[in-house]
């Protein structure tokens, strides 16, 4: 530290006559938004969007200084001369048939598509380096992108932002369907947010809940946009989106109720102070139709109506910067409640854990008379670890039978009997009331044929080939080196004597 003190004199001399200009107003802004959409199937979709806008010409400035825009991505834009970058990491599949159209669907796995500036000379090299760097930033295996899975679409994937020309030579597109998205991908994604996960909507992003969902898709979109209405200069826009679909049964125990706390195990306490806008939208289109039964808590202060994806939609709006939204209870826990009591029925599902416990699905259903009820469960056939296969793996693996315990109404009312007096066969199950009897049925066990690898194929091939070669060689060798001549009859010898004994016994002349 001594040096620091001594150097003080030196630096003070350097102070130029210009002095300090007042820092200009911030040239970047942040908006955050959460849309909660109850889906037709009863599941709940939550879509986060964080949008950072930066009024800067990234490619022109030599020394780069970042405020809200993340440095790692900004450096990428200037180093690789990117025009647009779209990266999504998705787990699961958006089931349009049950969930309706998505805001922004992404394919399962990792998807990356990039438009380069037309100043880039060697697009393929830049693309390769860029995918390697992105793989480091997002902890994803994007480094497996190579020429075998890269395409250059000519008609689709036009730039989403400002673009003068759309020469598709500067476009690269790749998908890695096998990529598994996990917490390690979410953490770097969260780090790009200015408020990290300390304040604002990003507080809800708790990895253990977000990955306990039917669909999880996180994405990063970078594109140039117009800075003003006349579009005289360019700004850069970074949109970080995250969509999740919560399984209604897991979060709500079979009810349509939901709340922020139940879904995310967190509530909202404060807006991100760096954001200029921080809002939560709840889709109440379907609720307003039967509004006697459903209730939003707290009630929305304002609503917003628009045509989204071709249908008229109504959203309840909660502005986190509005003091009335948060200050009443110091936190905001959006809730949706059903006033009507839920129907009679019970479903208990305990998912399996690999090598620890099996699946358990219990359903309590009231069946109408003379009807057919089908319960079907989908299996996924998976490869086991190779030591876990039984000695006869091609036999298949058993799935234990399902159990049906039923209380069947009796045709004839049985007369109450004395428990001890009645025959043993009629008193196995206790019967509480005489109008029905208890029955337990089992289905057949299911034999599932799992895919079985050939465990010893490579070694077999080697051994077989070698054996064939060795047999051919051996006979060839014998043929060439052995001498064949007639053996002179010899007297004696144990074999001959034995043969003669047998011959004598049979009455044949000896040898």
């Amino acid at each position: 530290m001594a040096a620091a003190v001594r150097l003080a004199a030196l630096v003070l001399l350097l102070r130029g006559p210009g002095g300090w200009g007042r820092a200009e107003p911030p040239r970047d802004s942040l908006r955050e938004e959460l849309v909660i959409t109850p889906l037709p199937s009863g599941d709940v979709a939550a879509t986060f969007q964080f949008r950072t806008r930066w009024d800067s010409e990234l490619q022109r400035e030599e020394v780069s200084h970042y405020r809200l825009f993340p440095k790692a991505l900004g450096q990428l834009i200037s180093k690789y001369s990117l025009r647009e970058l779209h990266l999504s990491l998705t787990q699961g599949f958006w089931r349009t048939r049950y969930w309706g159209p998505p805001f922004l669907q992404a394919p399962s796995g990792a998807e990356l598509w990039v438009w380069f500036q037309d100043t880039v000379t060697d697009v393929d090299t830049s693309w390769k380096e860029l995918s390697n760097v992105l793989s480091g930033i997002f902890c994803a295996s994007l480094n497996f992108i190579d020429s075998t899975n890269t395409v250059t679409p000519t008609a689709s994937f036009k730039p989403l932002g400002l673009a003068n020309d759309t020469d598709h030579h500067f476009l690269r597109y790749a998908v890695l369907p096998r990529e598994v998205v996990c917490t390690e991908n979410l953490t770097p994604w969260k780090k790009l947010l200015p408020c990290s996960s300390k304040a604002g909507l990003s507080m809800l992003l708790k990895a253990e809940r977000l990955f306990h969902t039917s669909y999880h898709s996180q994405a990063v979109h970078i594109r140039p946009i117009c800075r003003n209405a006349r579009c005289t200069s360019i700004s850069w826009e970074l949109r970080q989106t995250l969509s999740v679909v919560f399984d209604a049964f897991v979060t709500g125990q079979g009810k349509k109720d939901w709340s922020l706390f139940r879904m995310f195990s967190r509530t909202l306490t404060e807006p991100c102070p760096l954001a200029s806008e921080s809002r939560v939208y709840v889709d109440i289109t379907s609720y307003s139709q039967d509004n006697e039964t459903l209730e939003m808590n707290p009630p929305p202060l304002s609503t917003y109506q628009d045509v989204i994806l071709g249908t008229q939609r109504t959203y309840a709006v909660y502005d986190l910067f509005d003091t009335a939204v948060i200050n009443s209870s110091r936190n905001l826990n959006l809730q949706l409640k059903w006033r009507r009591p839920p129907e009679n029925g019970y479903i208990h599902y305990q998912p399996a854990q690999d090598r620890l416990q099996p699946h358990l699905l219990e359903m309590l259903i009231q069946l109408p008379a003379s009807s057919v009820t089908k319960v079907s469960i989908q299996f996924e056939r998976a490869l086991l670890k190779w030591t876990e296969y039984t000695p006869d793996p091609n036999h298949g693996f058993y799935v234990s039978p399902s159990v049906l315990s039923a209380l069947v109404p009796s045709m004839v009312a049985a007369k109450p009997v004395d428990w001890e007096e009645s025959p043993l066969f009629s008193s196995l199950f206790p019967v509480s009331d005489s109008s029905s009897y208890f029955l337990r049925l089992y289905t057949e066990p299911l034999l599932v044929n799992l895919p079985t690898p050939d465990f010893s194929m490579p070694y077999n091939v080697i051994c077989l080939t070698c054996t064939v070669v060795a047999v051919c060689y051996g006979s060839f060798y014998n043929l060439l080196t052995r001498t064949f001549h007639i053996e002179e009859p010899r007297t004696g010898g144990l074999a001959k004597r034995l043969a003669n004994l047998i011959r004598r016994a049979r009455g044949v002349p000896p040898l």
Partner: protein
Amino acid sequence: MAAAGAAATDLEVVRGKRAALFFAAVAILLGLPLWWKTTETYRASLPYSEISGLNALQLRLMVPVSVVFTGESVPLDDQEKLPFTVVHEREIPLKYKMKIKCRFQKAYRKTLVYEEEALSMGSIQEAEAMLAESQEQAEGSLTVYVISEHSSLLPQDMMSYIGPKRTAVVRGIMHREAFNIIGHRVIQAVQAMSLTEDVLAAALADHLPEDKWSSDKRRPLKSSLGYEITFSLLNPDPKSHDVHWDIQGAVRRYVQPFLNALSVTGNFSVDSQILYYAVLGVNPRFDPASSSYYLAAHSLPHVINPVESRLGSSAASLYPVLNFLLYVPELAHSPLYIQDKDGAPVATNAFHSPRWGGIMVYNVDPKAYNASELPVRVEVDMVRVMEVFLAQLRLLFGIAQPQVPPKCLFSRPKGEGLMTWELDRLLWARSVENLATATTTLTSLAQLLGKISNIVIKDDVASEVYRAVAAVQKAAEELASGHLASAFAASQEAVTSSERAFFDPSLLHLLYFPDDQKFAIYIPLFLPMAVPILLSLVKIFLESRKSWKKPEKTD
């Protein structure tokens, strides 16, 4: 009939023997070499002897010094007797396998006319400016002017002067032993301006055995082709503080000139970022006496780790990153001071971490809280911040404070904050460090390749190794002949080539191929083929021995 049959059988037996011998011959002469050739790993030849020779390399670092005498500096008859050159060589005692010798080659001459004119100017600065105009000095060389005893260039009590460029001025003397005395003064000045043991020890810190000083010597960044400098403003409490800093202007005014001066040693890139909600890893303690918070010296090592994960690695290059953090403590923990080992607050309120960067705590003026409501707008005083960061930057680049000999006038560096001879000294140190690194890398590569015979050595790896060895030798030669700039360039090439060879992914291709698996594959083929050949060879051998013995018996 029987005889003919026996003769035919004999013929047949001989033919069988020949066939067996032929099989054996084909198997041994053709099969074995073919198998050997097709299964061997490709290993290009490497200069093993030269690599082991590098370890015993003697580094001679030559510093060309020209000593220039003005007219009245020494007695006239001494001037007549001036030798042409004098070499002053000494070994630098370091516990390192390379012998390092430092050679000061002093060339004596008299002043030229314009030099005489310059040295008769009124002040040393004017003289220096005039001298610098007229001649360009090579990197690493020094010029010492010996002026007359009563010259008014230096204050009367000063014996020598060290300038910001590559020049020094020494006062002469009229004495019988003048030559020795002046020679001693010259050496003193020259040593202060060029290589010293400390500089080399710091450069070789990674290659020397640990001692108690080594942690201090390991402070500077390792030599590299380029460096990234990142300034980060940490604002853990954006609800209370709205912090603004004019980093763009500060970098342009203070950092860029310094880096321009250093640009010979590598590429530099500077960027900055603001991180919100980034907290230090340690909870500050409250000091009731001054109603402030403090970070004790022993807790400083734990401060960096949690912050580091937010800093983010540099995406755009592979160069080492130097981080400079400006931390504005949250409202609940301010003011925050850093205490040294004795418990006294550090004047600069900053500390640095070796090879990583520096952290400075910037407290918000408490008056600001009274005036307005939260968040308080804070304008960072960049002069205060940058003087600390620049001092840390000097330390992290290994530019130590010079040891000034007694009675020596010492000039302050000009605008860029770096003296030319300091830069030269950095280049010496970096060259030696590069050579040591390249030698170590090459030696370990040679050892590794010798130990594991499965490693494939491709031709391009081999050519990188050859290039690295040649570059090391060239750098050593250039150092010995005093060409610092080209020596540095060669040493950088040596490091680059040697690392490229060492980390080439093709070295790993066949590494995992254990012997037992190899034999599991070979045995089913080799056993059935080798057994008949061996058996028939044994049989032939036994029969031939019998047939040799037989004739002896008949005799």
